[in-house]
C-alpha cells in the first residue's frame, strides 16, 4: 500500500470519527429504530468512502446529512409495516439507562420527551427532517437550506410549521392526560 493511500485512509477514518454520531443521531430520530439507523449510518459512511474524491471538506457535513436523509426516506419506504410497538421508546433513544428511580421532575422531562419523540415520528416530510436538523442537530438555516435544497425562507416557514404540528399533537396528548 502506498503512503498516499494510507493517508487517504487516515483522513477517512478522521471523518468517520467526526461525523458518525451526527449521521446516526439523525437516522435514529428519523426512523425511530436503532438497528435500521445503524444500517443507514454504515451505508452512508461507505458511500462517503466511495465518493471521497468528489466532495470538498467544507461541504462534507451537508452532503452527509443529505445522503443520510435520502437513505432514511428509502428505508422508510422499504419498511412495509412500521413497527407498531417498539421495544421501549425510552430505550430506543438511550433514555432508560440505569436502574435508579427517576426524580419526579426528571421523570416528567423524560415523559415529555417521549411524547415529543412520538409526535416527531408522526409528522410528515420535509417537516420532520427540518425539525431534526434545526432543533436536534443544531444546524443553521443556511446549512439546512443546503442539505434539503430548499430556499432559506421556505426552511424557516417549514420549521415553524413542523413545530406547530408537534404543538397540535402534544396539545391533544397533554389535554387527554389532564382529562
Amino acid at each position, binding site marked *: *500500500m502506498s503512503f498516499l*493511500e494510507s493517508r487517504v*485512509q487516515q483522513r*477517512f*477514518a478522521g471523518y*468517520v*470519527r467526526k461525523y*458518525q*454520531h451526527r*449521521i*446516526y*443521531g439523525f437516522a*435514529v*430520530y428519523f426512523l425511530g429504530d*436503532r438497528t435500521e*439507523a*445503524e444500517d443507514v*449510518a*454504515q451505508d452512508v*459512511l*461507505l458511500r462517503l*468512502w466511495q465518493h471521497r474524491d468528489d466532495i470538498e471538506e467544507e461541504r462534507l457535513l451537508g452532503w452527509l446529512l443529505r445522503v443520510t436523509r435520502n437513505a432514511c426516506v428509502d428505508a422508510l419506504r422499504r419498511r412495509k409495516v412500521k413497527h407498531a410497538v417498539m421495544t421501549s421508546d425510552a430505550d430506543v*433513544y*438511550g*433514555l432508560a439507562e440505569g436502574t435508579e428511580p427517576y426524580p419526579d421532575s426528571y421523570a416528567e*422531562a423524560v415523559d*415529555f*420527551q417521549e411524547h*415529543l*419523540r412520538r409526535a*416527531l415520528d408522526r409528522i410528515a416530510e420535509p417537516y420532520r427532517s427540518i*425539525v431534526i436538523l434545526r*432543533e*436536534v442537530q*443544531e444546524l443553521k438555516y443556511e446549512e439546512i437550506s443546503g442539505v434539503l435544497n430548499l430556499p432559506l425562507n421556505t426552511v*424557516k416557514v417549514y*420549521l*415553524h*410549521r413542523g*413545530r*406547530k404540528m*408537534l*404543538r397540535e399533537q*402534544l*396539545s391533544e396528548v*397533554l389535554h387527554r392526560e389532564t382529562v
Partner: protein
Amino acid sequence: MKPSNPSFRDWMDAHVEAYLDGDLAVDERADFEHGLAAGSDWEAELFLAGQIRDGLRALPRPACPPRVTEAVLAQVRREVHATWKDQFRNRLQQQLGALWQPALAMTVLLLLVVSAALIGRPAQPQDTFAEAQVQQALVEVQWALGYLSEVSRETGKVVRDEVIADRVVSPVQQALTARSHRSNDMQP
C-alpha cells in the same frame, strides 16, 4: 384585523413559533403581541411551543455504536487491499505483455545458437587405441572387404548371366547367324 376574527386566530396560530424564534417583522410582532394581550389561551400555546423547542433541543444525542464504524473501516481496508492487489496484478500483466515478445525472440535465438554449436562441432578423434582394438578393427575391415568382394562377384555373375547374356550376347549371336545365312543364300 380584530383578535376575535377567526382568520386572525389562524394567523396567530401559524405564527407562534416564528414569534418565539424572533423571526417576525416588527409590525407582525406588534400584531402578535396585541393578540397575545387579548386572549389568555395564546399564553398557553406560547408556553407549549417553548416547551417543545426546549424539549427538542434537550433530546439525547444517541452515540453511534462502535461496531458500525468498525465494520465500515474494516470494509474500507478490505477494499483498499483488494484494489492494491488488482493494481499490482494489472501492472504485472502490462509489464509481461510488453516483455513476452522480446523474451520469446531471445529464447529462440539462444536455442538456435546452442543447436548450431552442438551440430556443427567436428568429431574429436581419440588419441590412443589399445592393440586389441586395432586387431579387432582390422579383422572387421577384412570381413567387411571379404563380404563386399563376395557380394560384388555374385552381382557380376548375375549381371553377366541374366542381363548381358540374355539381352546382349544372344541377340548379337542371332543377328550374326541370320546374316551368314543370308550371305550363303545369295551366292550362285
